[in-house]
């Protein structure tokens, strides 16, 4: 077997194992939440009588371990089950939300990744000059502000004062592509600002780290211009750590954007999971958590594979 295929196979197996452990943790975790859906759904209007009736009709009186195996086996069959709170099919519930979340993450990545790479290279090229410092200050400031603050600042200038972009990301399945892009512009920008600094700094540092190497010296002695030294000679060797950081940020864009969703009222997965935790709609929480866990594992796998592919020493071990 080729080593790369073997490595990928191993990683996938580990990923599956991790996912199974995560499923156990998720299930145990939601069992530990105080109260259950019956009390949360009824809220202030709960009486012992109505709670008991609701609990029974939802099948919550069955022991936990039986519910776990039941859930796991239906998950393996690709059946997410139905939401406790309103009996809707969870797959149907999640599909449009997941689509929205992925689209937002993709847009934010499409803005931030090229900017971060170019910014990082420029900062490395003009290291320790005014340009480098300006880039550093701007990105560090943007990463230091909490997301909602960045969001409010962007809303204030671009929506309230300039009036060019909407502050509500009102999208649904009938929204056209162009309208969708306009509606998503502010949340995507916010996320891009927040994640850019990390990637940009990593690009800059990785490149600068390599500049002391002898082959860089050789390239310079050949008379190559500095930008060519960076892009052709330093960057390919710096790609592995950069790819890791980019993938980590992508995972964050998918799983950690609840705050931005709330500020822009964007109907993504984050809002769904928060609602479901509040209402103790356990099957939905479990399904969402599992999707998030799978996303992380998958993206980590990708980053591992990418760093192997980009590193000839790992690709062709002796």
């Amino acid at each position, binding site marked *: 077997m080729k080593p790369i295929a073997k490595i990928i196979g191993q990683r996938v197996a580990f990923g599956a194992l991790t996912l199974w452990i995560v499923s156990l943790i998720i299930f145990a975790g939601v069992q530990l939440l105080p109260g259950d859906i019956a009390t949360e759904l009824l809220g202030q209007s709960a009486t012992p009588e109505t709670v008991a009736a609701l609990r029974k009709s939802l099948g919550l009186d069955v022991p936990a371990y039986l519910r776990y195996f039941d859930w796991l086996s239906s998950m393996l069959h690709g059946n997410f089950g139905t939401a406790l709170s309103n009996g809707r099919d969870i797959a149907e519930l999640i599909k449009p939300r997941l689509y929205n979340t992925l689209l937002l993450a993709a847009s934010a990545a499409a803005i931030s990744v090229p900017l971060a790479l170019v910014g990082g290279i420029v900062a490395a090229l003009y290291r320790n000059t005014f340009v480098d410092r300006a880039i550093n200050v701007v990105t560090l400031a943007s990463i230091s502000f909490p997301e909602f603050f960045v969001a409010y600042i962007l809303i204030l200038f671009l929506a309230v004062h300039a009036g060019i972009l909407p502050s*509500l990301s009102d999208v649904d399945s009938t929204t056209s592509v162009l309208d969708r892009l306009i509606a998503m512009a502010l949340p995507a920008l916010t996320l891009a600002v927040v994640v850019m600094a990390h990637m940009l700094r990593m690009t800059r540092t990785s490149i600068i780290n390599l500049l002391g190497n002898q082959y860089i010296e050789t390239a310079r002695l050949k008379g190559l211009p500095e930008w060519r030294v960076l892009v052709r000679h330093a960057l390919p060797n710096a790609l592995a750590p950069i790819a890791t950081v980019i993938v980590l940020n992508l995972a964050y864009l998918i799983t950690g954007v609840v705050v931005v969703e709330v500020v822009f009222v964007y109907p993504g997965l984050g809002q769904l999971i928060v609602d479901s935790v509040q209402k103790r*709609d356990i099957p939905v929480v479990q399904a969402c958590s599992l999707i998030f866990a799978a996303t992380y594992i998958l993206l980590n796998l990708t980053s591992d594979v990418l760093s192997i592919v980009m590193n000839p020493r790992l690709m062709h071990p002796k």
Partner: protein
Amino acid sequence: MVKGYDYSQLSAVSRRRFLKSAAAAGALAVSSSSGILPAFAQDVIPKKGGHFKIGVGSGSTSDSLDPATYYESFMYIFGHSLNGYLTEMDPNGNLVGELAESWEPSKDAKTWTFQLRKGVEFHNGKSLDADDVIASINHHRGDQSKSGVKDLLKTVQDIRSDGPARVVVSLTEGNVDFPYLMEHYQLAIMPAKDGKADNSGVGCGGYVLDGIDFGVKATAKRFSNYWKPNAAWFDSIEVLAIHDVAARTNALTTGQIHAMDRCDLKTVHLLQRNRGLELTSISGTQHYVFPMFVDVAPFDNVDVRLALKYAINRQQLLDTLLSGYGQLGNDHPIATSNRFFAKNLPQREYDPEKAKFHLKKAGHSDLKVQYHASDAAYTGAVDAAVLYQQDAAKAGITIDVVREPADGYYDNVWMKKPWSANYWGGRPTADWMFSTAYAAGAAWNETHWKNPRFNELLIAARSELADAKRLEMYTEMQGLCRDDGGAIIPVFANYVNAMSTKVGHNKIGSNWDLDSFRCAERWWFTDV
């Protein structure tokens, strides 16, 4: 016989013409004081058209179209757009008939006969008859019911029809206010299908369900066969769930929505400067409560309770917590707008000396108590507790404020800890409010208060038909609540909403937010 609202005579055009001609004749004062005309402030003709967008601070993915599960304003407002109810609270606080044209009690108020309106059609084309009403009410009754109004309907013994247009309800005990229960936001009238209520979102309200994405938004289009004239002016409506108050405010200022509920009171004075917006502050029945268990020490001593009631600075709470958008509370849950409000009961003031006096009388030189609060009860509940802590310290009372997590608050803290934070929304009648949270044995008697005289009066007043006698009884009950009860009620919070100046409206109802949840039906665009 109680007459319902005669909508046909309230044509906006004729009202306007009448107002104009009456004013010309100099007779406006006379005609409006006669009480025939509702107190309308605006002299405009409502117009049809437009797409009305409402942003509300609630709405959850776990919502559903079944009225038995309606929870929070998102579904209440949308529910009032889709559905009709037997009765309706008009903007002046009077109960009028909606789907019921009129109603009549038996002498003991134990049997109620509702005469249904003719010509009412559901969105699926079915005509309203008695079976629909019976099925809709029964939907909330019985052992299988998961409805929040199950408890309210427990005195209903039997519902039967008397011909297609009459519904007869028998109660186990007399209740003069029974028709008021019929305007409850969960008691929507649904079409009957094989004897069961069809809870799929088909109603007989002014708007037909178009689409709903729970926890995100809901849309509806005007129902062309709506029976009520001069209502449901918009071509279509959209209710958006916008939980973050800053996001709601931004959406309104940038014109993405036309109306919002629950303004941020800390910044509302800034919002007021915006000329494109109108702010409405309506004093209603919503109030904040500090309920104590009267059967748990030290609250089992009435003097301790009085000391705590004198130790809270109500005016300060009103000024800081509510920025003045509210009314002072007098330790009873009846709002000033209620017709049985006890006007002669003196307002309780902040008085550390009196608090000390009562504390001493109770045999305490100082007092240390724990108060459990969370913003799940109402926005600012923890701040209110800390303010109270400062006020009470001056009376020698140490309040230990325990901050509780918002998640699961109503399950783990409220009515579990001896002293915790709570709020109550609108209950349109004194009996309803008292029976919900102050009667002995009530499921939500959050103070465990069992005052024999109070409970005796409560039952007597419920079947008393003479208003003067009832006022006397309710006044005494408010006094008992104030001086013996376990609830500290420092403030009543107004419903503070904002809307675009493009939106026209008449007098705004005070039952709930956004014109008692009926904004989609009652408001219109002035610029279409």
